């Protein structure tokens, strides 16, 4: 549409139909979004992809590592949690399912759907024998789940106890949860911001929060974190670390997604005033970015840095011990694709990030600007191997190491 035609249309509307005279202000989600852009989220794939279509042979890893398909036929599989008997549970977003993936005697896997029809059940926490599912504001506890995979009893409803903001409170934005169990026995989760970028209630949104497992004693762990879909506690220092998705529509190369280190509960990490350590072009409100906690690392613009775990196994070389594996689901709000891989954040003796290193690549086809799968979460198995969930193709890859 040309500007002239558009203006003509507005003029007709103004003259002929006064009801249309009140054109809306630019809505929050459209801030910075140029009218001529055609960047949009990539289409999800929510149907089964057969094993022989999985790009496991395209995966690139450092020497000595190998990748195999651990499980497949799990459309939309995202965040993973492991039960005491080795069942891998996987949450999802759009398809609304929670999966249970158990190992058969012959090494193959069996996948069951243990919950469905839930609103974006992305956050999973295993505490003892009980699985907690966080689906936006709904919180459900499936007791003794591994003993009941074939006939899952009704869950215990904890939604009111946690009293998380509803999807309507979020306006649909960043309402899905990541959840992790802290070394203090509390459940850590995110409350994402209710927009792309906006003035928001900073006591309600853009937070990392923790609760007792019964939903009581909410505590703000970090403020001004736009949307974290990955958290873990350092195995030695017990500090909380989190990935963060930065805002859209501020250019191809800014801001970076970030890694955050929370030294004390309640620290302010600066959103929406500052992102990736720099002033926001629309929402800085004259705040000095140095007054906020700086990101522990920059993880790349628009990469969608999501699930993260400290490597606590012994299978991988010593250099990986207590380092952070991070899944980068991959960009949409960028003209050229970025991410679609797993990286390692290496920490020095002081616990500062010394470098970000590519670990699992091969899913991003730069020449053709296509991607083969989208890594969303990582999980360290008890044998020290690393699982990587691929949401786009509904697969879980297993990475092992042999000298």
């Amino acid at each position, binding site marked *: *549409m040309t500007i002239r035609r558009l203006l003509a249309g507005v003029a007709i509307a103004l003259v002929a139909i006064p009801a249309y005279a009140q054109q809306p202000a630019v*809505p929050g989600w459209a801030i910075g979004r140029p009218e001529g*852009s055609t960047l*949009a989220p990539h*289409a999800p794939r929510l149907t*089964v*992809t*057969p094993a022989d279509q999985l790009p496991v042979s395209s995966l690139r890893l450092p020497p000595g590592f190998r990748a195999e398909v651990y499980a497949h036929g799990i459309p939309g599989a995202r965040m993973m949690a492991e039960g005491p008997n080795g069942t891998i549970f996987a949450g999802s977003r759009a398809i609304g399912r929670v999966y249970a993936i158990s190992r058969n005697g012959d090494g193959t896997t069996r996948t069951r759907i243990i919950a469905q029809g839930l609103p974006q059940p992305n956050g999973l926490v295993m505490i003892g024998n009980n699985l907690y599912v966080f689906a936006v504001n709904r919180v459900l506890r499936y007791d003794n789940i591994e003993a009941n995979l074939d006939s899952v009893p009704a869950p215990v409803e904890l939604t009111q106890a946690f009293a998380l903001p509803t999807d309507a409170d979020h306006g649909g934005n960043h309402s899905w949860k990541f959840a992790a169990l802290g070394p203090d026995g509390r459940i850590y989760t995110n409350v994402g911001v209710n927009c792309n970028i906006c003035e928001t209630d900073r006591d309600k949104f853009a937070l990392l929060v923790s609760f007792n497992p019964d939903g009581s004693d909410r505590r703000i762990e970090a403020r001004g974190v736009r949307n974290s879909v990955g958290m873990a506690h350092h195995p030695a220092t017990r500090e909380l670390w989190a990935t963060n998705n930065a805002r859209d529509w501020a250019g191809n190369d800014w801001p970076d997604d970030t890694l955050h280190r929370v030294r004390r509960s309640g620290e302010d990490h600066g959103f929406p005033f500052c992102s990736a350590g720099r002033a926001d072009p629309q929402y800085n409100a004259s705040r000095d970015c140095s007054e906020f906690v700086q990101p522990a690392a920059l993880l790349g613009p628009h990469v969608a840095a999501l699930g993260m775990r400290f490597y606590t196994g012994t299978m991988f070389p010593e250099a990986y011990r207590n380092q952070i594996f991070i899944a980068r689901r991959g960009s949409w709000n960028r003209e050229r694709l970025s991410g679609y891989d797993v990286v390692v954040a290496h920490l020095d003796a002081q616990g500062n990030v010394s470098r970000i290193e590519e670990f699992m690549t091969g899913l991003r086809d730069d020449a053709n600007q296509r991607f083969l799968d989208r890594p969303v979460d990582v999980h360290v198995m008890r044998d020290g191997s690393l699982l990587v969930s691929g949401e786009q193709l509904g697969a879980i890859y297993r990475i092992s190491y042999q000298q």
Partner: protein
Amino acid sequence: MRLRLLTATAALAVAFCGSTVAQDAARGGSLAAERCAACHGDNGRSQMPETPSLAGQHASFVTLQMILIREGIRQVPAMAAVTEGMADKDIEDLAAYFASLPPGPPDDRPARDAALYAAGEAVIGPRRCGVCHLPALTGREQVPRIVGQREEYLLRAMTEYRDGQRVGADAQMNSAMVGISNAEIAALAHFLAQHD
């Protein structure tokens, strides 16, 4: 429990990224004649109020919406029984069939109201419709073709997105409809329905 469904579709060969290479549009056509045509039209152009036309709709869009309906994420009472337990392959073949049909307006499309049409056209730019639906508003992948669609269906869909009664794979449409008035939705629906 849908384990049977998961394994039953494991033989399906699919090229990635929304490609419909391996889907069987002819098989989809047979399924559509049996299950879809009564409401969505023999040629995929709906003659039934409140029921969308699917002819020329993108396969990824049809597949996604049918999965959301089958899973109970998107509530469409008239579709619940049709999609219950439907295999992924059936859905993908149906989507390939509808994508192969030439799009077009319903036979009963009413006359154009020039003022309403112009008012609707004026909302397209400020609402950034073309960013996702593309400037021609013909959509791509999971984003639907919206031109030539039934007017009352468009009106209902936009209203449901605005009011949080409908969700997609993400919240893009909910965000795009924040704060829009009923009058603007009516104008948009008229413009889109009349625009080819």
